[in-house]
């Protein structure tokens, strides 16, 4: 129970921090109020953050018993959605690529680092 409460607090706090960073980057790059480009980048970032939170909070004895399979499925699913959305938005030029790419790819390494660090520290031998 303690792990869940701490985990929830961690994920909410880190999401708020990352949202703040994304807004700062957007303001720096676009010099305009957040709009469609920001929403697209923030949505994809939120999806990634949600997947990490799910991997952290949703772990259980049943999943552990299956070994690598859940982890690989999780990575595969996450990559598929990320690539599909990115290729679609960039290919169709549905968003301002300059703003979308900057906001997403400057914030994403931190989402990644944050998620991996949390899963690392919460993992059991």
């Amino acid at each position, binding site marked *: 129970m303690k792990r869940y409460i701490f985990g929830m607090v961690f994920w909410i706090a880190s999401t708020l921090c990352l949202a703040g960073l994304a807004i700062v980057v957007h303001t720096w790059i676009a010099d305009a109020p957040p709009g469609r480009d920001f929403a697209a980048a923030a949505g994809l970032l939120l999806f990634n953050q949600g997947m990490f939170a799910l991997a952290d909070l949703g772990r259980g004895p049943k999943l552990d018993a299956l070994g690598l399979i859940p982890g690989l499925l999780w990575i595969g699913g996450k990559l598929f959605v990320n690539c599909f959305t990115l290729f679609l938005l*960039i290919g*169709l030029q549905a968003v301002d690529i300059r703003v979308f790419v900057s906001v997403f790819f400057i914030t994403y390494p931190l989402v990644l680092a944050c998620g991996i660090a949390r899963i690392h520290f919460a993992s059991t031998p």
Partner: protein
Amino acid sequence: MSPEQNVDKMQEVVDYITHHVLDGQAWTLGGLHLDFAKANLPPWFTLSGLMGMIGAGLLCWLYCKVYDQKARVPRGITNFLEVIVVFVRDEIAVANLGKEDGRKYAWLFLTQFTLILTLNFMGLIPIFTTATGVLGVTAALAFTTFAAMVYLGVERFGFVGFLKNFIPHGIPLPVLFLLVPIEIAGIFIKTIVLSIRLFANMLAGHIVLFAMIGLIYIYGAPALPALLGGLFVFFLEMLVAFLQAYIFTMLSAIFVGQVLHPEH
């Protein structure tokens, strides 16, 4: 859309691909543009060099700081890193050099494998570029294998003994005049082939991927099926990234093994 507009867009895509896959002195990320020349950095400091430094720095940090050597039962990232170490040591180094030499020189193959794997995967993240898609980088990596072959061969057999190993046993003298130069050239050819294989594989994958996305950019919604092609190539690239790191390290171990154990 008129054919002229299509041609213009095609040219844009070609320019983008060329700019992205070639090495340069600028790092462009969306609205950000970092020019190394303007920052008074030397001409040899290129983007692929920077990527190499980032990759090497990341690995140093992971193995020196994050890796918990005291942990009796590894967990988290230590466990993940240990899987890689054991895989390279047992399946590549020991399998090709024997138990004693394999364990002794596992560090070399582990360094090659982890660095190539990191640089290959970094190339799949749009914020970075593929350092292993630049011939200079792969040539430098292949040179480490060449240096290991020569240094370890001379260290084990002495300079004369190392040269003697180029002479096959039981071959008539006239044939030796043909075979010995081929054997000596072989050590250089192996190194060159090692570098070109990695370079070509990483470069080709990226060009195909960009071309797929470029189709959607040029033709719009009717070219949407190309998205599935792009996704397929992306996942294929992930496989290739691992496979090429494995092949490079495996061949490297085989070449060093041949020098250390010429009787086999």
